[in-house]
């Protein structure tokens, strides 16, 4: 039989919940234990990568759409948020939501065109669109300020009735990002486990068969793509509010590469693998102080190895190792 690519659906809700809560707990106490400002920034960035990887998991991991526009959605969210809060003085919450929504609108336009092609050329069309967007950022100087970028994006604050909560320091901002990440991951894992998630897996494994049992594949693909773009936009908005500066160079292809690597290694089934991989893949090169060039080479090699030997990602790889060991012991 032809070997398929990943087929795990996490069904054990309690196990997932336990994992999720432990993870959240560790991430919330880590900056209090290790009191180095650098750690907070690294953690904040890795959380943004978690949102990026989880939303990309919906597109590549679940639906099997090889989209190369994920960095572009991140950029759309980042620019929308930056322009709204700098030029129009919009508050954080509406800016965040509008960033997500504008990414969704762009994604809807892209997928309308991209679904006209075969799945092979899907990647090309999305790549073409993301390069069009990059041209716009660079050359539409009146609005985006071109290659100079937009400085001075304010740190977020919330106004609830008369109460004003400020997130001006890195640490406060980190907790805000953690909250939003936790909510996004919870929402995405709900989708993964729902009827929609199962329909998406069916489409990935065999589109014709899925359609024959009544799954409207175009509708579900559009849904997954647009939802993924929404969360990428949210991640972009968090990014600009944390870094307080944005320029076209922030969203190169290497961002998409990172997202792809995270999803492929994380295994396309459950969200645990992707969650751990996202944090590990951001932190390991960061702490080893590898230059971005070498990091991308490393990611490329990992991608090749995964495609060749572990099509189910690390979870699959561990299972394979474990199985071999048990087989050996049985034989002995």
């Amino acid at each position: 039989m032809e070997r398929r690519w990943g087929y795990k659906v996490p069904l054990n809700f309690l196990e997932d919940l336990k994992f999720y809560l432990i993870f959240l707990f560790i991430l919330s106490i880590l900056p209090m234990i290790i009191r180095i400002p650098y750690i907070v920034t690294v953690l904040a960035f890795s959380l943004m990568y978690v949102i990026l990887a989880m939303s990309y998991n919906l597109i590549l991991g679940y639906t099997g759409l090889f989209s190369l526009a994920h960095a572009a959605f991140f950029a759309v969210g980042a620019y929308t948020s930056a322009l709204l809060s700098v030029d129009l003085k919009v508050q954080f919450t509406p800016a965040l939501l509008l960033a997500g929504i504008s990414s969704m609108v762009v994604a809807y336009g892209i997928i309308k065109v991209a679904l006209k092609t075969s799945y092979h050329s899907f990647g090309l069309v999305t790549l073409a669109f993301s390069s069009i967007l990059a041209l716009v950022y660079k050359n539409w100087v009146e609005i985006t300020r071109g290659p100079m970028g937009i400085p001075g994006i304010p740190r977020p604050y919330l106004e609830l009735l008369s109460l004003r909560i400020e997130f001006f320091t890195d640490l406060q901002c980190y907790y805000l990002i953690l909250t939003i990440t936790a909510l996004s991951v919870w929402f995405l894992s709900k989708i993964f486990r729902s009827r929609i998630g199962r329909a998406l897996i069916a489409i990935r494994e065999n589109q014709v068969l899925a359609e024959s049992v009544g799954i409207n594949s175009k509708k579900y693909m559009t849904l997954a793509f647009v939802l993924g773009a929404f969360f990428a936009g949210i991640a972009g908005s968090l990014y600009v509010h944390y870094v307080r500066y944005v320029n076209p160079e922030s969203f190169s292809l290497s961002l998409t590469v990172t997202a792809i690597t995270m999803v492929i290694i994380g295994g396309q089934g459950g969200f645990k693998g992707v969650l751990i991989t996202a944090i590990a893949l951001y932190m390991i090169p960061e702490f080893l102080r590898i230059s971005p060039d070498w990091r991308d080479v490393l990611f490329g090699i990992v991608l090749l190895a995964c495609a060749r030997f572990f099509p189910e990602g690390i979870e699959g790889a561990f299972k394979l190792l474990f199985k071999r060991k048990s087989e050996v012991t049985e034989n002995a």
Partner: protein
Amino acid sequence: MIDSILLQQILNGIFEGSVYALMAVGLSLIFGVIEVVNFAHGEFYAIGGYITYLLCSVFGFSYEATVAITCLALAVLGGICEKIFIEPLIERHWLMPIVTTFGLSIIIQNLLRIIFSPDVKKIPTLYGAEVLEFLGVRVSYQRIIVIFGALISFLLLHIFLYKTKTGKAIRAASQNKEACSIVGIDLKKVYLLAFSLSTMFCGLAGSIAGPVFCVSPMMGSALLLKAFAVVILGGFGNVKGAILSAYIIGCIESFAGAYISYTFKDMFGFIIMVIVLLFKPQGIFGKKVGI
């Protein structure tokens, strides 16, 4: 009296079209035969450019020898890459070969940046900056080499695909794989041949167009996107359609750059691609099956 600006744009368009066509032919060939989208195609072109740079500027080979050696080297390299990375994955889920070529493209691009530094390198050629002038049109000799080199190579490819037995096997494989196996065509050999043929075109493009554009690690990825647009326009896996639409896109871009906006010149190719996808998703020449 012909307007010399118009003529100049047509000539520029044909030149750019030749470069796009050299890239698109290989992409289309690989897609037609192996059904793999080769994201590393632009990087093979960059390798071709760098080999040319090394041989010409550093080791001082003659230009003719350089072109020949580059083509040969790229054909061998492509064959090795196909054997190691693509062949074991062809039977798997279709995503795995794409992920592999994408990973390959990232590795090669960053290694080139590490080895040769991100600086732009210039290749001095036999003709330097010499320019031919006629009817008020100026064109450098290197560009003439590109235009005619592309035409001659397409002619040779046509002869190879239609007159030789091996070429016929490649065309057969692009039409029906099961039938090929039945009549005893070794599909693995055909895949290998198609891949190294397509990377050979990259080598040719790198060595003749490299001196015009200069050599840098990113030279491939920008051109690759255009080549993709061309391939989509021409209909996936349709080699002749790809060549024709390469010239069409080259001319349209050159006119748009001259008369509309030079900044957004690169966008027009993509806009055409989007329009074609919306109204004729199989491409302009996409009807015919096979190459």
